[in-house]
């Protein structure tokens, strides 16, 4: 569900960028990017089998 919401937010940002206001597009992009990072951190819980 969270990925559907992310795609939807990317779609909204694109639509606002093309048909809406510039400042709103920048603000919505920031929110969508922060949400993407948050969802990535939520999913990045598996241990990497690496040894340096």
């Amino acid at each position: 569900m969270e990925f559907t919401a992310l795609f939807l937010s990317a779609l909204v940002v694109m639509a606002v960028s093309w048909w809406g206001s510039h400042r709103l597009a920048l603000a919505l992009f920031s929110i969508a990017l922060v949400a993407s990072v948050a969802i990535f951190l939520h999913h990045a819980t598996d241990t990497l089998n690496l040894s340096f």
Partner: protein
Amino acid sequence: MNRSISVTLNALGLYGIVLVLVAAFAAQILLNELPCPLCLLQRVLFSMLAIGPILNIRFGPRPSHYALSLLAAVVGAIVSARQILLHIMPGDPGYGSALLGYHYYTWAFIGFAAAIVLVAIVLLFDDRSRDVAEARPAGPFADGAVRLVIGLTAINVISTLLECGFGACADNPTLYELLRWLR
């Protein structure tokens, strides 16, 4: 570099993103390989990579628009690098089929890294930061690129809803959850 050349380069970038999203869909539909959560996140970030060029085409090239592309590309590169590291151990078959020897997430990493380099090169030669950028109608080439990438993102919204349904997406999805739920 004048506005016309910048807009053309941004439109070309959008067609590149369209190609990546179509290739991902082709693998999903033709090979019946459903994207995993990290794969979906990489697709989202390719879509977000398109927002900088869309703003450049509509309002004229600005450094802030290129910055949006750089931010999306850096996050995308981090996500795809993590998936590469998850499957880097010898004997690990990786996730999904390989295309020309590389899995989708490896191609995604190459794509995001190439985007960072290309945006940096365009910024080197794009000296329009002192100009007053204003909204102007785009030509058919750029307009088509924007509409294609918006359409593909809309299709991704539907596809992801079908795949994940209203719950959390499966780590290793094998069927469309919403279709199963509707039956």
